[in-house]
């Protein structure tokens, strides 16, 4: 992500230091992660210490300081999904991809995340891959879904 684009996002929020979270969200949404250079640019433009930016970037769940894989797997571990067996789904996906929640594989193919509730509890347990919801997913069915991704 180049500095011009970062500047545009900063300008959208009138460059106010109180909009720091909104600006970081803007970069995260567009770039899927927060590169060091972008954070330095934000720090410089808003006159906010880099340490404070890193505090925020590590405090909130939406931010990632490392690049994400091509495909993002979200496994809902909300309470409703939990009582319907989400842990077993998660364990199977971990075995299949070889990564833990919060990690990305070395080929940058998959990133695995757990989410606390996707709010489609009627479909639990739920796995979401690249925004597409796979409802009532049994551990045994996860392999069929994941094999379609390159």
């Amino acid at each position: 992500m180049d500095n011009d684009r970062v500047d545009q996002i900063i300008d959208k929020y009138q460059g106010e230091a109180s909009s720091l979270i909104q600006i970081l969200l803007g970069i995260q949404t567009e770039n899927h992660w927060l590169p060091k250079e972008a954070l330095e640019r934000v720090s410089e433009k808003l006159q906010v210490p880099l340490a404070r930016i890193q505090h925020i970037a590590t405090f909130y769940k939406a931010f990632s300081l490392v690049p994400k894989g091509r495909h993002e797997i979200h496994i809902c571990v909300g309470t409703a999904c939990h009582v319907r067996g989400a842990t077993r789904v998660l364990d199977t996906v971990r075995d299949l991809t070889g990564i833990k929640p919060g990690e990305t594989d070395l080929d940058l193919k998959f990133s695995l995340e757990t989410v606390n509730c996707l709010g489609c509890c009627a479909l639990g347990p739920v796995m979401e891959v690249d925004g597409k919801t796979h409802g009532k997913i049994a551990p045994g069915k996860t392999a069929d879904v994941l094999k379609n991704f390159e």
Partner: protein
Amino acid sequence: MPRINSPSELEKLRQGILSDRDPEKPCITLCSGSACHATGSGDVAASIETEIEKQGLSAELDLRKTGCHGFCERGPIIVNHPEESCYFQIKPEDIPEIVSQAVKEKGIVERLLYTDLNTDEKIINESEIPFYKNQKRLVLGSNGSIDPKSIDDYLAIGGYSALEKALSQMTPEQVLEEVKKSNLRGRGGGGFPAGRKWEESRNAPGDIKYVIVNADEGDPGAYMDRSLLEGNPHSVLEGLMIGAYAIGSHEGYIYVRQEYPLAVENLTIALKLAEEYGFLGKNILGSNFNFNIIVHKGAGAFVCGESSALMTALEGRAGEPRPKYIHTAVKGVWDNPSVLNNVETWANVPLIINKGADWFTKIGTEKSKGTKIFSLVGKITNTGLVEVPMGITLRDIIFEIGGGIPGDKKFKAVQTGGPSGGCIPENLLDLEVGFDELSKAGSMMGSGGMIVMDEDTCMVDVARYFIDFLTDESCGKCVPCREGLRQMLKVLTNITEGKGNEGDIKLLEELSEVAKEASLCALGTSAPNPFLSTVRYFRNEYEAHIKEKRCPALSCKELITYHVDPDKCQACMICARKCPADAVDGDKKKIHIIDQEKCTKCGTCFEVCPSRFGAVNKISGESVPPPIAEEKRIITRKSKEK
């Protein structure tokens, strides 16, 4: 659209919208909330549009994409107006039939109607379906009839008339008195009287005051706030405007999770329209009242649902709470008086102003007035959002509205209040739902998550699950929460893995006491509740885990083994083929055996074994029978012997 400058102009506009609308004109409403979207309502909408085009009906039939109807179990949902016949689990290929039979012929598509589970009777109207019949949908009711992206739809059902009434006929003091009289209590968790909060802010010194919508709905398994913001955003805005008028605020914030993209989208559209029509900005409806609203997207932190943490986040910092010996109503955002209420609380305000506090206080119990929206989820037949009057029993919600537990399983507990709440066992099911009643039972109202658990749910694991969640979400500012929860999690994890020791329960109780007494904010003080309530009602399960290394619910992975019963196995190969770990040894006509070394305990074999065989067992607390001898594994079918 020219700005509306006075109450009379608003009424004229409303009459204009109504006279342009023919209530007899056929209209299909389609649930387009996030949950139905996940089940494919987007494709259904496209299919309806194509069909309208194909049959040349664009002048005769309207399609309205509404918010969540609540009955998520059966989504996507279509209601055909004006007949109000209601169809469930619609797929794109059902549309031609619905359009030609139900709309054009004014008939009924019987196969898509709701079938009563007890009587097998087909039910045509939504209001007759048990799920809806026993609810009181005051706040959620309009969700199913308006397009959230259209302000005209909201005006057509009387929208913004409460704002008009407040601004033109009431003084701010009168509005405040009405809300105080209604005894509206906060729907976000604590149940603090909204009127008292408002009054405190109104009387607090300072010219700049803020009103805030807390839409940082973080409880796992709860999504009613999202549903309201997605389905009826103007009702929340209207409530916020009225609150601002009452306390003398000119700036409002909506703190909404960025994980709710549709809610953010609909909210942004609603704000834009409200501004265009003149419900926001300067001199609203000619009353000299000025007000603006800013949307702040939350970046994902459960603790930001706490008022002081949320306000810190609004200031652009990491959302950590602060001690509240001075209320946020007096010193909140940038140290200015700030009133923060939950989405549902704000949405109740227009109703109270329109219909009066006397009407509102007629609903509910002595101390809890009005209705409450719950998200009824987990091991329940009818998953969905339900709105019920306070004072209804848990039994009525779970069995009358929710349709009970699926699959002939036995009810075990219902968890309310999210991670800060607790589990309520079967013998307390006749408890009346209210803020104080639930607290007395060791749980709380919370924001309205209601997770039903059956005999297969392990209560120790549930406690571990919530403490795990809270350990992860603890902001780390105070020690009792940060360190105490971490220790509790360690002990609970050990118990669920069969490594529990005598004295663990006592240790957990001590840790709970400290966290409850000494934590900085409500996240920490209420964090031990999931443990305390489960140990209070299900102590025997804890003891079975610790003393017998047995999980009575057969749920804790480390304490169970899967075993194929050689007497029941029909050697059908289904489990062997489906096993992701290749742990099932067997062949056609050769009884299957699970290789315990390879087994990852994912439970696939248990789920896929045909129920007429039921050959896969879960064993806990006893040793696995040795595999049967090789020569006994061959099955000779009786039919073939003849």
